[in-house]
């Protein structure tokens, strides 16, 4: 810069400033590459990002109450929840008008299922009241008739739930995901016998780390062998690594069941050689041990392959040079070889960790009660309890947790320091 004298601007042949011309050319280049990736980008946005965003949106979305009971929601705003009195006749009249429409459209039971996630009993309350609504006297008074249909309409808890969940957006799902709830005194933790999600999040993280570490400990020597053996033997070893990789996940998981169970192959062998007595067979499955063993085995190739591809590029001359300069085997490995393989460890660790944190089928099959992950509960809420809002909230938390960990990882290890080959 200091070479160019002040005031003199470099230009191209046709008199354009060089800077402008360069920027123009670069922009054209960028547009062209953008056009090239556009089909893939649009595809990913439409089929991957959009559904995820839509699913995550469910974690706060709560328009069903207002849509099903619009008049009641408005009328309830007048009600003073702290008064200790149930709402007055106007609210019951609004409820009647709303439910008459809802029963016609058969949306009242849907609302009942939704509110049942917050308070047990709402499901049958709405189903029961829906059956009675046609027989009610249109002229009123409604309060008595509702109380006659179900005494729950005279309970404060019912109205508190309705009021609390009448806004279009709710933090209720997220509170549940944090094992918390909103009570009259504000937000507080749920009682001990209902807390589960934070425990599962913690366990998921802990087990994922254990699995990643055991994959590394087991995978590193294999990758080292693969990279340093002569081609013929390393090819055979490679097939041994890949063969389980190509086998169905369920087959591998079931195989572990056969091996690890109390009447299984390993226990039988240990009893046979007399290491343990028949009465004290080891419990290695349907607990955390089972999950760790089976998942380490299943995810091992994801550690070995990136490690191998990085180690393959490390020239053996470095180690030889180190040794000729007087380093012993260990020093040569630790000071010269190992640092060069770190990018492979980074890649393998990220891969294994991210895969295991969202794992679902193996923990379900071999995890028993102490080895299941948060994803098992998410799956339960998606397919069984139909509480998609809570599933979305748990999913969002998992996503955020992974992103935070990824950022931390980037800060410590540096994502540029990760190589797949």
């Amino acid at each position, binding site marked *: 810069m200091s070479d160019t004298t002040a005031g003199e601007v470099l230009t191209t042949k046709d008199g354009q400033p060089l800077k402008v011309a360069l920027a123009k050319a670069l922009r054209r280049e960028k547009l062209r590459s953008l056009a090239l990736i556009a089909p893939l980008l649009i595809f990913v946005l439409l089929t991957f990002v959009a559904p995820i965003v839509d699913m995550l949106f469910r974690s706060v979305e709560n328009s069903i109450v207002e849509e099903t009971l619009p008049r009641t929601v408005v009328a309830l705003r007048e009600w003073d929840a702290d008064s200790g009195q149930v709402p007055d006749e106007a609210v019951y009249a609004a409820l009647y008008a709303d439910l008459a429409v809802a029963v016609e459209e*058969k*949306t009242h*039971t*849907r609302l*009942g*299922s939704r509110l*049942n*996630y917050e308070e*047990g*009993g*709402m*499901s*049958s309350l709405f*189903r029961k009241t829906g059956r009675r609504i046609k027989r009610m006297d249109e002229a009123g008074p409604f309060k008595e008739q509702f109380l006659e249909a179900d005494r729950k309409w005279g309970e404060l808890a019912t109205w508190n739930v309705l009021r609390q969940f009448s806004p279009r957006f709710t933090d209720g799902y997220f509170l549940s995901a944090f094992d918390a709830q909103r009570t009259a005194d504000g937000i507080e933790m749920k009682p*001990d*016998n*209902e*807390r*589960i999600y934070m*425990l*599962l999040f913690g366990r998921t993280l802990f087990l994922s780390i254990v699995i990643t570490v055991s994959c590394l400990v087991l995978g590193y020597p294999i990758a080292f062998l693969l990279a340093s053996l002569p081609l013929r033997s390393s090819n055979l070893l490679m097939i041994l690594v890949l063969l389980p990789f190509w086998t169905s996940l369920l087959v591998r998981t079931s195989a572990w069941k056969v091996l690890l*169970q*109390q*009447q*299984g192959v390993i226990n039988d062998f240990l009893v046979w050689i007399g290491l343990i007595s028949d009465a004290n067979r080891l419990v290695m499955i*349907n607990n955390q041990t089972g999950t760790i063993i089976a998942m380490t085995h299943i995810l091992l190739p994801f550690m070995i392959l990136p490690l191998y591809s990085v180690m393959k590029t490390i020239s053996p001359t470095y180690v030889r040079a180190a040794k000729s300069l007087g380093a012993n085997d260990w020093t040569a490995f630790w000071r010269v070889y190992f640092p060069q393989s770190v990018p492979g460890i980074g890649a393998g660790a990220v891969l294994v960790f991210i895969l295991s944190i969202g794992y679902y089928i193996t923990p*379900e099959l071999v995890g*028993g*009660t*102490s080895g*299941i992950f948060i994803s098992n*509960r998410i799956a339960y809420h*998606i*397919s*069984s*309890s*139909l*509480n998609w809002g809570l599933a979305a909230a748990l999913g969002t938390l998992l996503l955020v947790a992974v992103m935070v960990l990824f950022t931390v990882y980037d800060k410590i290890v540096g994502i540029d320091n990760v190589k797949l080959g």
Partner: protein
Amino acid sequence: MKLKTVILAGTALAYAGGAAVAEDMTLVSWGGAYQASQKAAYADPYVADHPDINVIWDESSNEAVAKLRAMNEAGNVTWDLVDVVASDAIRLCDEGLALEIDPATDLADAPDGTSAADDFGDLLVSECFIPQIVYSTTFGYRSDIDDWGGKEPDDICDVFDLETFPGKRSLEKRPINNMEWALLCDGVPKDEVYSVLETDEGLERAFKKLDTIKDNVVWWSAGAETPQLLADKEVVIGSTYNGRLFSLIEEQKQPVKMLWDAQVFDLDGWIIPAGLPEDRLARVKDFVKFATDTQRLADQAKYISYGPARKSSAPLVGKHADLGIDMAPHMPTDPENAKNTFLYNYEWWADYRDDIDAKFQAWLSQ
């Protein structure tokens, strides 16, 4: 001559083409032996009479509720008929995802003229539900355990008796049924189980009872696990669906016996998804009427040991199609097996399922 040939060939082609346009009907079921029994008893005879229908089976009943909801939201319901358990049928009906049926017009009357509504009786637990079978969740135990000193469990509470019947048990990884059994064995009378379970103290009581065997329980989530665990001697006693135990005992000849005491009846049946176009709806209604008539339900029992949902089908239950053994003594509804049964309360569980399940899972993970 040539022209005639062409016309003939053309007509033949058109005819063949017309016949080839068979209309697809997608039935959703559980796969395995159960789906096979439905195919043999309902679908095959129906297709024999209606060659223009092409039945496609989808083994998705396990996640039918979630998938149906997703299909409904996407506005593209590809299923015509879905096999679900009664509690799922109730939820699908609540969510407006299943069609309400009218037993008088949609279901066939019994041969003796009894109306369908009376023939199915109490089993029509939801406006949308067309019951097929009565199954039960009950226990099977190994009959070759030396530690038991020749004794065999004959009471539900023997499951909780680790002194007399040591060994591991397998129970389902959900509160339903387990909580009821625990309370029954803690001395709660049968008709008070649900009102006790509704209270916090009752819940606590059930968990306390389950605590006594917690360390000796393997928890299952798929119905096939208990038969496997029993066959491997991993557990000595375990709960599962009675049809699974039947095939373990009679087909695979394992040394396992049934403990029918306090078996919990449950129902399985069809629902028609809401929002089907007219033509598909008419077609599937015709099929359902045929597939749930008295003879068809009785026929199904030839292949699997589940009781037909119609009263009028019971006398028609015959022998197993392959084994040639009488099926009646293997039915959960057989008087000999049904001396002490427990009725699962759908409405109650619809209300408390979410709540108790959260507590049950928390209890499990402690």
